[in-house]
């Protein structure tokens, strides 16, 4: 089964073959879980987003025409699912007025030797809007126009939130460096 190529797996999954679907899940679920964790506030939300993402991936697999990276296509779909969850919850939070900024700090480490877990922790410390814009722009490579369309905000807001996110991250990293020294 592991000898099956990615194309064979995709073809099989398009025909709703359970083994091919399982193989795709095993191959890409950890990467997509990483994506979901960057966009969701909690692990439980990320797990829900990952489940919904795979259901949508299998449902929409016929639309994938083998042009471009399959992983990139899946990531984009996963980001959209995670953002839909965010958009649904944003209304609730606005209504309830909850403060979603996490209080927890990252582990002290050298600036150049920041590990994945530390960087993830730093991202999670950002306010929700900053985090989403930073994730989309810096890691996913979206343009401000695309971010504005995806999050239904102004392009100027996207730019200003990115700047603020960078400043905040820089300050946090420097703060961690000072503690480490």
């Amino acid at each position: 089964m592991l000898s099956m190529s990615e194309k064979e797996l995709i073809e099989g999954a398009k025909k709703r073959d359970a083994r091919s679907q399982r193989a795709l899940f095993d191959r890409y679920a950890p990467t997509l879980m990483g994506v979901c964790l960057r966009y969701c506030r909690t692990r439980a939300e990320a797990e829900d987003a990952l489940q919904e993402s795979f259901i949508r991936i299998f449902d929409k697999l016929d639309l994938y025409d083998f042009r471009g990276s399959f992983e990139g296509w899946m990531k984009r779909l996963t980001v959209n699912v995670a953002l839909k969850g965010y958009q649904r919850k944003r209304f609730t939070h606005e209504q309830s007025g909850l403060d979603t900024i996490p209080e927890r700090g990252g582990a002290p480490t050298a600036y150049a030797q920041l590990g994945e877990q530390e960087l993830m922790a730093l991202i999670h410390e950002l306010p929700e809007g900053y985090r989403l814009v930073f994730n989309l722009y810096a890691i996913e490579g979206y343009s401000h126009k695309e971010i504005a369309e995806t999050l239904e905000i102004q392009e100027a807001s996207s730019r200003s939130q990115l700047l603020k996110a960078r400043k905040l991250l820089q300050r946090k990293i420097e703060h961690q460096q000072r503690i480490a020294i």
Partner: protein
Amino acid sequence: MSEHIDKIFREKLAKHQAPVPNGLWESIAADQAAKRRAGQWRAATKYAVLLVLLLGGLTFLYLSQSNTEAVATAENTLTKSVPELQADTETNSRSTQEITTTEKAGLSTEQNAVSEAPSRVNQANDASKARSASDQINASVPESNAVVQSNFSEETTTATKVDEQEAENTSSRQLVAVDPMLTLPLPLLSPYRAEVVAPEMVPPNERKTTEGFRKQQRQKFTFDLLAGPAYANQIFKLSDENDRALLNSREISEFPSVSLLAGFRVAYQLKGRWSLRSGLLFTQIRNQFEFEQIPIDPMETPLLIRSSNRIRLLEIPLLATYELPGKRFRLALNAGPVLNLSTVAKGRHLMPDLQQPINLEEENIYRTRVGISYQLSLTAVYQLGQGNSLLIEPTFRSYRSSFTQDDYALSERYWLAGIQFGLRHRLR
């Protein structure tokens, strides 16, 4: 600096992987299994509709063909009667000629009598003779006229009688032949009237043959031998929500495979188009079992365990059949209960808590008898001759009760849709 931050995050987090929680795949697989079943149901419905349309089309073609044959028979009857009508016309014209000849002969006799009169006058010497001759002449003219007229009227009467008889015969033939003409524009109304022959018009020797054919008795018993593939739809039902893991594990590890229907039937012809059908049926429901066993050592390749689950059923059908009219090609609708005699299940299934599949033979979860199911089928019969026919029978069967024991967490029911092919033999 800001772009440097972006780069650090992009490089380290773009390929970042996180552990996936256990049980997440099972939830996704259960959703996919449900969608797969829905897809199969849609496909089965699509094929059923196509089959019904195909059979409907065939029935329509068959009925149209029957009507065309009936119309052709009517046309033959008419074509045959045309020479007879021409012969009648010739007879009539011949009798008319005879009449004309007779008339002419009568008139010439009259003319002769008239022409003979002056000679008689000449022959008479005296006035009385002349008067008497004149009286004779006067008398002979009407006499000759009367003779001519009576001869003419007799001939005419005879001719008229012949005509009337011929006309009767012709009109009676025409009634038989013309009657279908009225139905020609509307062949569906009564195409068979064209074949009805008035008994008095059938020659006695032919009549005997017809009566002899009618008295021939048909055998009331027919034998069917059928077999074919089928799709068996597995339906699980959960009695307790706590057992959902078992439902999920079975739904994601079992897939429908090609099932088999086979049987031997005897039919007894009742009055009219009805008959009763019974016999012995063998049904094998097949499901593909697939399970990927994850080894303890993550470096080892997962082991794919695959087997075919089989549920074998021995059953007795009790079907009522209504046969639609036809000649070589006929359609019949069968419906009725099917009594289950024995059920045996072999294969494997997955328990959610175990990493290995268990054998169905070891676990006493299936019933040995599953009660009554209901069958509906449509038989297309094509007669080959000598009492043999070819059969194609789309069949639908629904099992109302569960195949599993009452104390098992899941109820498992099935419906089958298949197509059987076979032979029918009628005793001669």
